[in-house]
């Protein structure tokens, strides 16, 4: 298996290990979001509960063809402003073996749930501003016509190419008999360059392995485990809409929600065409600080 964990990872620098350790330690602080589906890329209609702050560290490791192995951590801070509005900030970095470790940028996003009740299909509106350079390897979403050939370019050159863009998503999500089905339609426009609108998509389905709760507290119980699958990729641009010259990935995914603890997620993401990386190994952990806003209130 050429793309699997290979010797390339052994060459990741001490700076990369320090970077990942810093991200992990920063996020090692809170209770799980029990109803969050186990997705990395696809959004569902689940918003952060009001007043809660969720800290998530998610990481990608890969060794694409003809390029150096890389490790890309992303740190997310997600806050429930109200029951219908969640705000989020991201910090991103990456380390490439035989190259360097770089900070690649930040993102701010908000998600709004416009309808007050639960329906068969629940829409959520997503808006994002991102300021990232081309060394970004977070794969948080894929839009436009891209390929992994950009990964062959050294970080020193890529980090000088800054892209500021706005992004909108229409998130559709359904909960049926324990299953969650989510679909995201993505549109992105660079605001500092004259590039056309770029499009992408993500779809996913998941289910807890057991729907009933048990009478004893446990960690490795089936109701704490959920499994699913994601499919995501680019859809070209306004002038070249379609799957041609886009990256496409399919991924089984699994999550463990520990009671009053953390959520751990894992997913191997398989590239479906020659423009995609062979396998992206994605893993993450989440901690939720419950009622974070109470820390700043006087009365108890």
């Amino acid at each position, binding site marked *: 298996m050429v793309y699997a964990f290979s010797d390339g990872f052994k060459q990741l620098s001490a700076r990369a290990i320090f970077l990942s350790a810093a991200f992990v330690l920063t996020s090692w602080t809170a*209770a*799980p979001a*029990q*109803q*969050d*589906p186990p997705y990395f890329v696809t959004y*569902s*209609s*689940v*918003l952060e*509960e*009001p*007043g*809660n702050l969720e800290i998530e560290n998610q990481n990608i490791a890969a060794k694409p063809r003809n390029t150096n192995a890389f490790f890309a951590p992303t740190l997310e801070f997600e806050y*429930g402003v*109200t*029951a*219908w509005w969640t705000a989020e900030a991201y910090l991103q970095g990456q380390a490439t073996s035989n190259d360097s470790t770089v900070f690649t940028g930040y993102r701010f996003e908000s998600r709004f*749930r416009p309808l*007050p*009740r*639960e329906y068969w299909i*629940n829409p959520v509106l997503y808006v994002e501003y991102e300021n990232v350079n081309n060394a970004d390897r977070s794969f948080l979403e894929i839009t436009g016509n891209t390929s992994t050939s950009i990964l062959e370019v050294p970080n020193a050159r890529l980090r000088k190419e800054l892209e500021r863009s706005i992004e909108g998503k229409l998130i559709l999500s359904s*909960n049926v*008999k*324990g299953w*969650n089905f989510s679909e995201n339609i993505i549109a992105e426009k660079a605001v500092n360059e004259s590039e056309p609108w770029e499009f992408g998509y993500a779809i996913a389905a998941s289910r*807890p392995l057991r*729907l*009933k*709760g*048990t*009478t*004893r*507290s446990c960690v490795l119980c089936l*109701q704490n485990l959920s499994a699913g699958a994601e499919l995501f990729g680019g859809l070209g641009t306004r002038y070249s809409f379609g799957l041609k010259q886009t990256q496409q990935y399919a991924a089984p995914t699994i999550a463990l929600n520990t*009671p*009053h603890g953390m959520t751990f997620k894992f997913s191997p993401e398989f590239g479906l065409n020659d423009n995609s990386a062979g396998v992206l190994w994605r893993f993450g952990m989440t901690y939720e600080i*419950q*009622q974070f806003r*109470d820390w700043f*209130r006087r*009365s108890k």
Partner: protein
Amino acid sequence: MKTGVLLLLITASAVCVAAANGSWLKKVPKADRERVSPYSGVPDAASAGRLIFSDNCAKCHGEDAEGKRNRPSLRSERVRNATDGEIAWLLKNGNMFKGMPNWSGLPEQQRWQVIAYIRSLNSPVSGVRP
């Protein structure tokens, strides 16, 4: 213009006050109101519900379900008088403009177990204890 904004704020405040008084109960469709818990009379349901409550609900409503800050107590006349179906409807849909998120992502079976636990808190011989 200023008058319009003022009227909007007054209307929004009135809606919030109304919702705080349990006006969500009026929104529950008849079919939902009449739903019966599949866990009614199931001995372990309240015990399982207590754990789910502790993981998901206690952060706002308190470990003892007596409410925290401005978040309501679940040991109340209103909850006692509500039907299982009405509470199930609230858990599924939430009351988002009053701060209660929906819990539709939690499997329905677990929502019913939480209701069994809330019922045990409001029964004359109260509750499931740890």
